[in-house]
């Protein structure tokens, strides 16, 4: 294992320590969790400011107005019209002052207009038109019951997809009471929806578990990389410091646990 530079060791140990701080919330809300949570709120906001500046304003606004100078309010630059969105953007900041907050409505209106205008045809096409076109599928009537076990390409499956879509759509239909023949359609619709939600449920459970699995791998890699008794005293003290803090806290909680005769205090 190549010698790990002390700097990287310190940073990886900090990462592992903060991971354990967040996990301590599972036991109960405590100081370590609060520190880590508030720290990440600040760091992520600061990170966002930098990314907005370097990747947002810098190339799209400052570079465009580079050749002008602030004396002429950059109007003498090659592309002076870029000043207008900058002004509109600055107008957005009046949202906080009670008196001037109506000024911020102009840029918001401009933005909402363009955003909704662009959205209408594209959402209609990609969510309604294309799905309608796709649901008009000609089925494979020859292979109606499909080959092998539960063949998704069989005619029957295609029929279930078509009728299922219409029934589920009908369930979200609010202008007709679900009585008589419509009761059957709505019932079949909600059944299809429930299977669909079940599939999402199964996938979500897998998704959440893999988040925790990755955290174990992260801590595991950290211990594998840093646990090297021969790498000198400095490393070992920090290694034990990380786990030591939580060990002391765990002992304190266990003593409290037995003193209250097995009742975990919330």
């Amino acid at each position, binding site marked *: 294992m190549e010698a790990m530079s002390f700097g990287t060791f310190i940073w990886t140990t900090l990462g592992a320590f903060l991971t354990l701080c967040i996990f301590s919330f599972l036991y109960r809300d405590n100081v370590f969790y609060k520190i880590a949570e508030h*720290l990440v709120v600040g760091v992520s906001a600061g990170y966002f400011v930098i990314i907005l500046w370097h990747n947002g304003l810098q190339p799209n606004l400052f570079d465009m107005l580079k050749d002008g100078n602030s004396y002429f309010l950059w109007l003498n630059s090659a592309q002076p019209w870029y000043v207008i969105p900058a002004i509109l953007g600055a107008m957005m900041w009046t949202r906080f002052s009670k008196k001037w907050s109506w000024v911020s409505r102009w840029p918001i209106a401009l933005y909402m207009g363009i955003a909704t205008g662009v959205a209408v045809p594209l959402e209609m096409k990609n969510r309604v038109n294309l*799905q309608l076109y796709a649901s008009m599928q000609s089925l494979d009537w020859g292979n109606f019951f499909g080959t092998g076990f539960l063949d998704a390409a069989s005619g029957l499956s295609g029929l279930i997809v078509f009728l299922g879509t219409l029934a589920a759509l009908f369930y979200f239909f609010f202008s007709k009471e679900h009585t008589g023949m419509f009761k059957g359609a709505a019932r079949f619709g909600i059944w299809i929806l429930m299977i669909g939600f079940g599939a999402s449920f199964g996938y979500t459970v897998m998704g959440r578990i893999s988040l925790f699995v990755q955290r174990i791998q992260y801590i595991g890699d950290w211990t594998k990389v840093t646990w090297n008794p021969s790498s000198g005293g400095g490393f070992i003290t920090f290694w034990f410091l990380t786990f030591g803090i939580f060990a002391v806290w765990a002992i304190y909680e266990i003593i409290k646990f037995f003193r209250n005769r097995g009742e975990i205090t919330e």
Partner: protein
Amino acid sequence: MKRQIPLALVFIFGIFHIFQYFVPHESSEWLYEFFLKWIYIIGIFALALGIWSLIRVSWDKVKHRRPNWPYALITLGGLFAMIIFGFDYFRHFFTAEGLQNYMFRAFFDYILIPIQSTMFSLLAFFIASAAYRAFRARSLLATLLLLSALIIMLRFNPYLGFFGDYMEKTASWLLNVPNLAAKRAIIIGVGLGMVATSLKVMLGIERQYLGKD
């Protein structure tokens, strides 16, 4: 003045951009690109608002010694530390050296990533405890949901032996037939909902975003 012009603006730009989609001609495209460039800039200023409100709330908490105020100090500390590192200790404002700053990347790799991914991994535990104490087959529909979920969860389980293949086939059939029908209906519903909301905003029916006079 305060209401009429913004509503007119929304309507004009909205209608223009709807029909711009149907006009491929070069001039309509040029106008369309022109406004795209504007929106980036306006949007970035708007996002800065969120940051400003975070600073204001945290500073207010510290100034008035509200409960948990030292934690608000940590938030502000983290924020300004990142800004200092991001501008490469205020040496480079208009060039992107700040992004390569050692401390800036270290804070991101070893503070932001571990905490954020661990924050969400807590959910694995909450799902485990909810699975035990709350996920009930209280009705026929909930039973159907749980059964379909179990099939998907057992899909890659290697210990099913003979049933393994059938479980995989059932799971992929379930995903490609009933699940597809359900999600197609939901996508259509969501699509119509989005278009309806956009139209309401454009026609000035929905004025929530303008805020109160």
